[in-house]
């Protein structure tokens, strides 16, 4: 079973249906027992970094997510969920993140369109099980802040938007995607499928 961590941020319907279409049972979970027993967990999220961390702390799901990450089972942060994996975010003042990946989340600055919204091309920077059998292509982004990993080896894929923008990160069993794989056509679904394969469950 795949747990989608439900901490009151955003619509989880699309991601849950996408997982089911890939042949895995998905549940929205906000209790420790369900999350810890899942074969893989997804930390979704849209909205503001500070609000999201506040919700996670209020529900105790910040600790549960850290424990899940420490269990060695695959964890995937999507969009804001990816940003929360980092040490800190600067949205509306500095906020501590989950601290699972060293680095910070900063606002786009420049005379170009913000948010970075639309289809942009991935460039794979490292070998990763997520890229198994896949070619680089376009995925769908919507974000005004972007992550700056401290360590190059955690940066798995980038996209080009007036600079290199972090698109996929990973360390051991912990992964993050800045774009929405569930809204990114076939490539998005394949990336999600490759992540789900890490749960060790055969496709139904």
């Amino acid at each position, binding site marked *: 079973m795949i747990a989608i961590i439900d901490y009151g941020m955003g619509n989880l*319907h699309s991601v849950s249906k996408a997982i089911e279409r890939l042949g895995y049972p998905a549940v929205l979970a906000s209790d420790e027992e369900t999350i810890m027993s899942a074969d893989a967990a997804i930390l979704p999220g849209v909205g503001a970094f500070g609000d999201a961390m506040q919700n996670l702390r209020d529900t105790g799901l910040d600790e549960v997510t850290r424990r899940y990450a420490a269990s060695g089972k695959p964890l995937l942060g999507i969009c804001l969920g990816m940003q929360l994996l980092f040490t800190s975010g600067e949205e509306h003042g500095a906020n501590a993140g989950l601290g699972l990946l060293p680095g910070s989340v900063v606002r786009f600055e420049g005379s170009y*369109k913000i948010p970075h*919204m639309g289809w942009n*091309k991935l460039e794979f920077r490292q070998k990763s099980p997520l890229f198994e059998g896949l070619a680089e292509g376009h995925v769908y982004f919507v974000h005004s802040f972007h992550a700056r990993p401290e360590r190059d080896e955690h940066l798995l894929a980038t996209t080009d938007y007036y600079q290199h923008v972090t698109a996929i990160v990973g360390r051991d069993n912990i992964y993050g995607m800045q774009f929405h794989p569930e*809204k990114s056509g076939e490539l998005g679904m394949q990336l999600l499928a490759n992540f789900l394969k890490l749960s060790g469950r055969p496709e139904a």
Partner: protein
Amino acid sequence: MLAKRIIPCLDVKDGRVVKGVNFVNLRDAGDPVELAATYDREGADELVFLDISASHEGRATMVEVVRQTAGEITIPFTVGGGIGHVDDMKRLLRAGADKIGINTAAIRSPELVSEGARKFGSQCIVVAIDAKFNPEWGEWEVYTHGGRNATGLKALEWVKRVESLGAGEILLTSMDADGTKDGFDLKLTRAVSDMVSIPVIASGGAGKIDHFYDVFEQGHADAGLAATIFHYKEMTIGEVKEDLRGKGVEVR
């Protein structure tokens, strides 16, 4: 850099697609969910549903269509038509829509744009504008109700206004070009695109493959929207993209 987007638009009334859609191999050509999934497979970058239901029941049905569509497709989609309150936006976004299109309601109460942007984020708010050239003014005027009612608003002033209110995107339909198949209104599209820094989706007039290249290169649009030509299979989204790619335009 961002790819230029090709967006089919589906008119939905009481949960059914209207305006003849000519797809073969569909179990039910009037089913918006099945059509949406078909366009997704054909490479559409986004979809727009325009709800033209006149009744409360019809609009309630649309929420269910949105819910089912969100579970079936893998691309973002916008829902517009008959949205007059923040509660309507919330209902549709919760059901799985990615963006909400507002037109007449934004003109009637511009605070709806700012309120929606504040609550859900600018990226969720698409302001749809129907514009028509007013020869007396020598510029474009905003219309409502499918081009029937003139508002007295200058289109180029209105787009600036909605941008400052927090709109995330503009869906610009030329009433002069709509239905002609002679191509998008390049002058209007360019004037609007150059006026604002939010993305502009050009609509109305697409009839040939070249028209998409023109609206991106000369009209400076970020996306091109069409209905009839795709519904009637006059061209496929794949063909449009192949043409654009061949001319050096980045597409997915």
